[in-house]
């Protein structure tokens, strides 16, 4: 398979709009990298630049050490799976999967073997004589993947492949992609705006916003140690709660509430005495039995957990994911506590970690 390197990649359109700023990453052989971020953050543009569908304005793209920055898409040995499947409606599944190889004038017997092998991997053997219109969305997406597999490319590129599927099918197809990655051990780049896809699929995640890379790391790193408030707010569902607080006398004072800190937390904030910072708390890091009174205004039972929305202090909104089944009514007051806290610099919005300053 392949190692892919993006060095100082920029994308500037003709109207001087810059979509991607200084993108850097070295993708290891067999690694699955997920580009995640909100709409318009530049993740699809980056993928299209890698595929050769967009010109690279500045920077260098290397595949196995070979500079392919200016190499045409057809010569890059990469296969792309699109959101809308891009299947030929008048062709059968077999013909769709074989099409790229037919264009390359490969031996029909070799094509046949490759298509059957890919269909076997994807569980499409019984569907080969059907037309795309006769298949479900998930099956169509598998056909699109099969069309990539038969080419045996060095790199697989996925551009929001599950966005057209319903929630249940999305989960099933996501697992199939994961199994496919394990089976093929292929280098893959995957674009999504869905953090669940990113967290479940990725070996490493690239979180992007406004064309800038915010953080590159394993799913756990992004969840556990977000670089800034953007990553902290984007990764995790429901999103992290943020409060403006002042670190004073070993405690955090917010609007109408006060939170005590452990010695380790105090040490991490040693340079921020009497300064305003942002306190971040994930909903799942809030538990019943603390000393923060929260007035409930909404209670959503999710089965294993209950999502409680309320207000604390001077009306600050807070969401908590409590374990088990709870039946709080609007107006109930529940005592909650923060079991884990994240701190961010108020000015830069970057995470405050011990030894950062």
């Amino acid at each position, binding site marked *: 398979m392949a190692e892919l390197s993006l060095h100082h990649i920029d994308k500037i359109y003709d109207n001087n709009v810059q979509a991607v700023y200084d993108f850097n990453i070295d993708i290891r052989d067999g690694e699955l990298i997920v580009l995640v971020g909100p709409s318009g953050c530049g993740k699809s543009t980056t993928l299209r630049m890698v595929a050769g569908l967009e010109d690279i304005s500045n920077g260098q793209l290397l595949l196995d050490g070979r500079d392919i920055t200016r190499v045409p898409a057809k010569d890059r040995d990469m296969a792309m799976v699109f959101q809308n499947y891009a299947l030929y409606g008048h062709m*059968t599944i*077999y013909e769709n999967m074989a099409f790229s190889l037919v264009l390359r004038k490969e031996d029909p*017997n070799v094509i046949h*073997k490759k*298509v059957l092998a890919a269909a076997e991997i994807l569980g499409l053997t019984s569907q*080969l004589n059907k037309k795309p219109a006769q298949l479900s969305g998930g099956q169509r997406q598998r056909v699109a993947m099969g069309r990539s597999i038969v080419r045996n490319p060095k790199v697989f590129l996925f551009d929001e492949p599950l966005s057209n599927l319903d929630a249940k099918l999305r989960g099933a197809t996501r697992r199939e992609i994961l199994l496919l990655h394990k089976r093929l051990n292929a280098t893959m780049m995957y674009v999504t705006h869905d953090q669940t896809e990113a967290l479940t699929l990725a070996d490493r995640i690239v979180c992007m916003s406004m064309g800038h890379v915010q953080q590159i790391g394993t799913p756990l790193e992004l969840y556990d140690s977000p670089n800034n408030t953007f990553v902290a707010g984007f990764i995790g569902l429901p999103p992290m709660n943020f409060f403006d607080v002042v670190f004073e006398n070993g405690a955090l004072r917010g609007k109408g509430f006060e939170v005590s800190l452990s010695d380790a937390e105090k040490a991490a904030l040693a340079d921020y005495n009497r300064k305003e910072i942002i306190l971040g708390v994930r909903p799942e890091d809030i538990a019943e039995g603390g000393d923060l009174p929260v007035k409930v205004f909404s209670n959503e039972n999710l089965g294993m957990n209950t999502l409680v929305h309320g207000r604390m202090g001077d009306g600050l909104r807070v969401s908590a994911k409590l374990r088990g089944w709870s039946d709080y009514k609007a107006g109930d007051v529940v005592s909650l506590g923060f079991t884990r806290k994240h701190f961010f610099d108020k000015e830069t919005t970057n995470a405050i970690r011990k030894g950062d300053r």
Partner: protein
Amino acid sequence: MMNEQSVRLDRMRFTKNTTSSRLAILAIVFDVLYFVSLYKINVDYYYTLIMGASILYNLVFMLAAFLSSEGVKNYKQSYSWVLCVLGIIQIARIFILPVPAHATTLTVGGAELLAMSDGQFVRVIVYLAGSAACLFAAAAVNLVKSRALKAHIASLEGQQA
């Protein structure tokens, strides 16, 4: 592990019989050429009841040949027999109009003329014979392929059982 011959047979499970289908379409093209050429015939001879029948048959032929081309595309054996019948009729048509027309002399404006000239006669014979040949070839190819495919599928089912 399949050998090359088995792979070639197995491919037919997912690919169309385009050879037979294209031959049947070519037969339609030859028929159209024949029909168009026929209009150069001396009109006094052609303006008979046979003209209407000829037009109607051409329509029927084109429809039947086209449907058969779609049938053989999917290795359906029965359409081979339809193509054979259409081929036999194409041969028969040589003797229904061109041969009598070529043998008939008409007096037009005091001059003696053949209803169908030698050159035109050769052309229409080539077109009809070409059409018939394409139909027979399409039928034969389809018969061979469909039988081979049938046997291959039976052997696959036998292996699965």
